[in-house]
């Protein structure tokens, strides 16, 4: 807080509001499958776009998207950024966030891309390591909770 003028008051308050977000069946199925080590998308129509993360509807055609399609585990970086500042609720920097198109998906899903400390030592080099077109693959955590944080991306060196 900057300097407070004399004769004024600052009233502090901490707010806590609890929410219980309903997932619906589509999101729940996606998250449960993450827990099983699979990434699923939904497709609208026979030749429709495959949405990852899945939606119950195609945003473009406004038709239901109900067919399940498994995607990945390989994928291609559409774009990535290396975060070097500390944000509340985020990991300690530096870390990499990337939009990755998983094989078989029509859209890209954002998540962390793991690089080694060595790779992150020089940011210009690191940017090139995760340049658009870079192949990555999904890596699941050993202990999964059915949340989107159950997986992240690693470079696909093989």
């Amino acid at each position: 807080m900057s300097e407070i003028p004399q004769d004024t008051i600052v009233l502090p308050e901490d707010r806590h509001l609890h929410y219980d977000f309903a997932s619906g069946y589509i999101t729940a199925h996606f998250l449960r499958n993450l827990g099983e080590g699979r990434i699923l998308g939904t497709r609208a129509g026979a030749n429709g776009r495959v949405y990852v993360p899945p939606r119950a509807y195609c945003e473009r055609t406004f038709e239901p998207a109900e067919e399940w399609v498994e995607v990945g585990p390989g994928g291609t970086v559409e774009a990535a950024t290396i975060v070097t500042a500390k944000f509340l609720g985020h990991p300690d920097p530096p870390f990499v966030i990337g939009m990755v198109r998983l094989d078989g998906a029509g859209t890209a899903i954002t998540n962390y891309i793991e690089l080694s400390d060595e790779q992150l030592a020089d940011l210009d080099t690191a940017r090139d390591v995760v340049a658009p077109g870079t192949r990555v693959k999904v890596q699941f955590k050993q202990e999964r909770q059915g949340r989107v944080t159950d997986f992240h991306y690693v470079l696909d060196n093989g």
Partner: protein
Amino acid sequence: MSGHIARAGIVGTAQSRYRTHRPDVHYAELVQQTAFDVLADAGMTIDDIDAIVFAMAPTDFVGITDVDKWAIGAIGGAGKPFMRVQLGGATGVAAAQAGYFHAASGEFDNVLVIGADKVAETPDGQHVLSLMFDPFYERESGLNTITMAALHAEMHMRKYGTTTEHLDQVAIRAWRRAQRNPHAHLSGILEPADLAVSPLIATPLRRYDVCPRSTGAAGVIISSERAIARDQRDAAWVTGVGAIANSVFIGDRTGADADLNYADWGELRLAADQAYAQAGITDPASQLDVVEIYAPFTICEVSGVEALGLCAPGEGGPALARGDFDTGAAVEVNPSGGTLCANPIAVTGLVRVCDAAAQLLNRAGDMQKARAQRAVATAVGGTFQFQSVMVMDRQPQED
């Protein structure tokens, strides 16, 4: 909806000075002062106002749900027709458009569009912004307003060869222009050397590529054609409005089968095309005089001038770095310094409208561009997903 649109115009504008904190006023007092100022600018009293549109984005920063309902008395609005527009960062222009619809529909004569933000009332601003993402899919994915802009910058740079030096020039020139803006939060002389050592936030964005968090208020009064004629007022006529929404998921805006690609600001182009068609603008670079783009990051000024048709795709970086849209140019972009120099989120779009309209009303002070005839204001909200564009003209469109 191309062709001439129902006539209404902006007859008054006002802004507070922007800074990080305003501990000397609470929210309702902050917006009240600007209500007084905009009425004075239009030569009106509150009794002349028939309806109010309130511009307020997420209330999480000020910590008061439906804060507009508290502020209504302070702006003399009690008992009047009143509604609040909330479209994230696009709120300001979306609210101005709603005010225009109030007047252009024939339902109201003089409409006050006003709002304020106290973005720094919480120290947890970036956390607040993270709450706008999908709770299941993206809240824990590392996305926030800065990283999503960084991804856009990465894509634009790789597609077109836009450089850090281009972005540096955008910041340097914005800060320099803002020296003539009495409302600006940030202004001054930046040197490339200062920028080179400034902290990196998320590649390729450094500190000066990112707008500040600002507190302040803005307002305009929009009047119907009959009220403008009756009261013989000067007006910045609204000649075009456009708006476009896209998916919250930026990952949808990638790949071969995407309609729009996240490397470009295609949604802004579509919204501008709608507004241009109404306003009869076929060659923006020659027909526009002043453009106030809501560019919260340097990269957005680059992709913004391209989307608005002021230069070819990929030419934005070099053009801005050369000063092609700087003071004295045929088209001046963000003569106010723009959002890089003040970002009171709820009203940042309204600030763009104020700065653009003030140019046409010849009330822009040291920022005034001589004989400005036509201006554009834009706003953007969400994951660069909501676009709102308004074209204004010194003259009403001829029949």
